[in-house]
């Protein structure tokens, strides 16, 4: 296995192959769908709040390693955060947690983050 060339960070690949928090919430407070029409990727992000804390979060949809991987990582990151804390998350925070994927793929990474921002802006 030693020579296997790296395409993505192994963590990201793992998240893609075994995503966390995939599925639907029963009665979400927010549900936002984002699409990247250039490749057809589509992520729906659902949130449930307890007070101003994100108590539950799930995502669903289809996409590439980076958009699915990012959604899985993001949902892990935001659970338990306050709305204020979650609103402050940036693309760089997400990218740092993904081992710096190729720059030209940043809009794959940002799909779920955009959904999160959209949802929270409705709060």
């Amino acid at each position, binding site marked *: 296995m030693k020579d*296997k*060339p*790296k*395409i*993505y960070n192994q963590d990201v*690949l793992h998240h*893609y*192959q*075994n995503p966390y928090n995939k599925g639907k919430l029963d009665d979400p407070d927010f549900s936002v769908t984002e699409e990247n*029409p*250039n*490749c*057809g*990727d589509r992520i729906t992000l659902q949130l449930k709040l307890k007070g101003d804390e994100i108590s539950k979060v799930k995502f669903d949809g*289809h*996409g*590439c*390693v*980076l958009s*699915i991987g990012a959604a899985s990582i993001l949902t892990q990151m935001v659970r338990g955060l306050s709305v204020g804390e979650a609103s402050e998350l940036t693309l760089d925070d997400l990218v740092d947690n993904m081992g710096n994927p*190729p720059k030209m*793929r940043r809009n*794959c990474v940002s799909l779920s983050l955009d959904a999160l921002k959209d949802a929270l802006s409705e709060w």
Partner: protein
Amino acid sequence: MLNVKDVKRDFPVLKNRDVIYLDNAATTLTPEPVIQSLSDYYENLGASVHRGIYHLADETTEKYESSRNRVADFIGADSPDEIVFTKNCTEGLNIIAYSLHLWSDMEGKILVTEMDHHSNILPWKFMVDGSERFELEYVDVTKDGVLDIEDYKSKLSSETVAVGFPGISNVLGTVNPVEKITDLAHENDALVIMDGAQWLPHRPFDILEHDLDFLTFSAHKMLGPTGLGVLYGKKELLNRMPPPFGGGEMVLNVTRGEVKWSDPPQKFEPGTTPIAQIVAFGSTLKYLEGLEIAEIEEHVNGLTRRAVNRLSGIPYVNIYGPREGEPRGGLVSFNVEGIHPHDLATALDSLDNIAIRAGLHCAQPLHEVMGLNSSARVSFYVYNASEDVDRFIDAVKEAKKILGGEK
């Protein structure tokens, strides 16, 4: 036969970069003689054409117009006055659409195909939107990825104003039957517009033989500079068409009340044109003719056949477009089961510096018809060798091993 080794040497990027470039349908690399021609222009000429009364301007104008002559010869046009220089293929199509819209006795249906590039769909969509004179209809594509001629016949009528189609589809690779499409349209007195962006780089073409009314293409897809396209129009049409855009160099006479247009092609070239690029496009055509277009076609066909054959042998790969044996332009779109095309592109880039395209290729309606979210595409040109195809195939297999399938 094309000697790829020799050809490769003409392309500095291939020396300076470790890349297997298989995104030629998007844009091509540039050979030394064309780069040199641009430098020559800026180092020895560089004055505005037509209007300058001094030697520098005169020489520039001469080179400039000789490029126009060469373009006319290249596509077999009757006269250089039928050659309008645009900034890209897209602008040419917009000019036609706007101009027909301004042509007040026109009304009826515009037909385009489901396999058209956005550049040959959106200008028409803009034209018909909110218009009471025009309607837009799409000719179907069959499951085999070819134009449904029966559907075309059934949608064609005396109401049809114009028919637009791609000579070669930039996604399917389908080579459309120009003759048949044109004849049927003309029987119905409809104008015919061929989007030649994917044809002109690859295959000999003769306007007079095909009797097209309009043809558009881009320099940057055939080894030429960026920022230049060509719109061919039949002289009598260009004469009668109102120019949609105003500016300098396209009028004989402007008073507040009245405007008298210059003759075509100037009428359609407002403002200062891409002079250096036009001059360098002359050198581009010279280079292509040196390689011989028929040789280019054969070479690219060989690579494409090899790619189709080898991809077909991989069970988890789906290929789109015409069946094996049917004519196909120099490209193959496909998907690897369980791997998103974007991931495949990143993988090939990381694994072996192979540049391919992934996405919708500006043909979203077609992807919808094919039931696809997106696809991957390889496309070939003069500097690609069969080894490039093989390395591409190896990388696809490697990517499949690493990325596997979504679970």
